[in-house]
């Protein structure tokens, strides 16, 4: 907040201070109290059968309107278990599909997700769980915008939960990155979340381009995602700088394992593309064609992925295993981003709406997408230095 804003806030607060002095006069307060007492006399208390039953329950107090279940002094995990039993397995299952604004949504977020999170013990598992939940919020935003139900309150709900999950993720990966033997685990998680956030944002931007009326609805969510992409990316880069100077057998093995993962992912991606035979299936190949023609692309080109892979292999041969690891990680991130973007587009039914796969988006629309509120949709070069 700059000085100007501080001055404004001070002025605003001073202004509100004057309202704090407003009060009822004694006569007004007593007159009103008399009226309220009269009303109370006309409407005496009665006790329902449910209340008589509930009053016998000393351990738990259930307020049917104030909050669904109020259980003082009971540990959250036990409370969750209680609610799970209370709402029943079928409700819990049905809640999995609920979206913000649905009756069962609190069951999904408060019960189901907390119960599953409580089962994650290691920092790594907890970080991954937070990443999953953050991405789930973005999927919900996508589902709601497709249905035309992304209201202001749903947006706020999603944004606040999204922020909370990513903050939790960042805190946990930071802890992991401080441990010498866990830093690669931290980078792995950071790299995946970065790719996934970029993929989701890219698909949502594309959606807002083909359905311009949703641009306003998605703007704040995209801005929040953009901020988080930056923080996750910075943290990942910082962790990679530490890994890059690592030497020894341990990092050599980790780099070799990472290369195998990238090769498998690329092979898997090619095989899926061949099986579907849909024109848009091999997005990596098609994106390369588009890129070679100078058109805008929102997915990493396969030649860049291969370049990152080859750069990593060269460093590996030179014995620079730490650098090789980060290069392979970059290639993996690019493959993941491409795959996740494809999935996100499918969920948003983008091909059905626009009639065009992403790589065939007209130049004008693609340009518009690039000029959208977030600057994260450029291709990931795969960490090639």
């Amino acid at each position, binding site marked *: 907040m700059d000085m100007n804003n501080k001055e404004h806030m001070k002025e605003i607060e001073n202004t509100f*201070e*004057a*309202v704090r002095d407003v009060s009822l006069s004694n006569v007004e307060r007593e007159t009103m109290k008399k*009226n309220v007492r009269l009303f109370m006399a006309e409407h005496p*208390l009665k006790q329902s059968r449910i209340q008589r039953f509930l009053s016998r329950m000393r351990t738990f107090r259930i*307020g049917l309107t104030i909050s669904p279940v109020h259980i003082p002094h009971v540990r959250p995990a036990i409370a969750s278990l209680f609610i799970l039993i209370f709402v029943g397995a079928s409700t819990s299952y049905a809640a999995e599909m609920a979206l913000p604004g649905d009756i069962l949504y609190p069951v999904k977020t408060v019960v189901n997700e907390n119960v599953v999170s409580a089962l994650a013990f290691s920092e790594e598992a907890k970080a991954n769980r937070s990443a999953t939940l953050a991405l789930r919020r973005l999927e919900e935003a996508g589902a709601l915008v497709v249905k035309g139900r992304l209201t202001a309150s749903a947006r*706020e709900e999603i944004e606040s939960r999204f922020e909370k999950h990513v903050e939790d993720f960042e805190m946990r990966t930071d802890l992991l990155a401080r441990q010498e033997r866990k830093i690669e685990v931290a980078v792995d998680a950071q790299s995946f979340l970065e790719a996934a956030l970029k993929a989701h944002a890219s698909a949502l931007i594309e959606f807002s381009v083909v359905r311009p009326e949703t641009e306003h609805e998605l703007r704040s969510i995209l801005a929040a995602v953009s901020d988080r992409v930056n923080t996750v990316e910075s943290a990942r880069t910082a962790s990679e700088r530490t890994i890059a100077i690592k030497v020894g057998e341990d990092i050599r093995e980790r780099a070799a394992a990472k290369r195998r993962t990238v090769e498998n992912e690329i092979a898997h991606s090619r095989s899926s593309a061949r099986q579907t035979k849909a024109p848009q299936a091999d997005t990596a190949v098609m994106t390369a064609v588009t890129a070679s023609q100078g058109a805008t692309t929102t997915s990493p080109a396969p030649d860049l992925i291969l370049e990152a892979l080859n750069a990593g292999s060269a460093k590996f041969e030179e014995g620079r295993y730490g650098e090789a690891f980060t290069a392979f990680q970059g290639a993996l991130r690019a493959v993941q981003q491409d795959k996740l973007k494809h999935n996100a587009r499918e969920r948003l039914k983008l091909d059905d709406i626009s009639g065009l796969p992403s790589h065939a988006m007209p130049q004008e629309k693609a340009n518009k997408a690039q000029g959208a509120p977030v600057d994260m949709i450029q291709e990931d070069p795969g960490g090639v230095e």
Partner: protein
Amino acid sequence: MGSGKSHRHKKIEEDFLAAYDENANALFRHCFARVRDRELAKDIVQETFTRTWEYLAEGKQIGHLRAFLYRTLNNYLVDMMRKKRPVSLDAMTEEDGFEPADVPELPAEIREEMEEAVRLLSRLDDMYAAVITMRFIDEMKPSEIAHVLDVSENVVSVRLHRGVKQLREFWKERLLARPSTTRVQTPSDT
């Protein structure tokens, strides 16, 4: 209220009247800041208490009475504003809408500041006006606001942040609109 009442009923009545003594002024202040009319604010506060009592009279339980009162008040205000919306709050300008003149004991300077505050609030979106009033006038903590509105603390933080942002914009507009002789000097002016 009859003598044949159970101990439990007596306790509820006592608690409710104690809640009246503790909260009537604060609720009135909150309401006045948002509706800009002293008589209307009194009616709404009274209605808030009678509605809350009706709820209790039906045998239902209230965990946190103060939060419930604020929530009832807020719901009532939102309903009322929604019904009034076609008239447009913008039409309630400084010339015709705000009437604190029936509070003769207030010094002119304070009255002017009050006018300013309620004008600013009236321009805010309802959802932001509620949290800004609770935070800056009722001096409630974000956790308490969250409880009243039945939303998470994060949602309250987001609303506060956006509400303050809107207020700053309105404030800047007012500064620009003021004649230069009366304009409040800011560091950027020097």
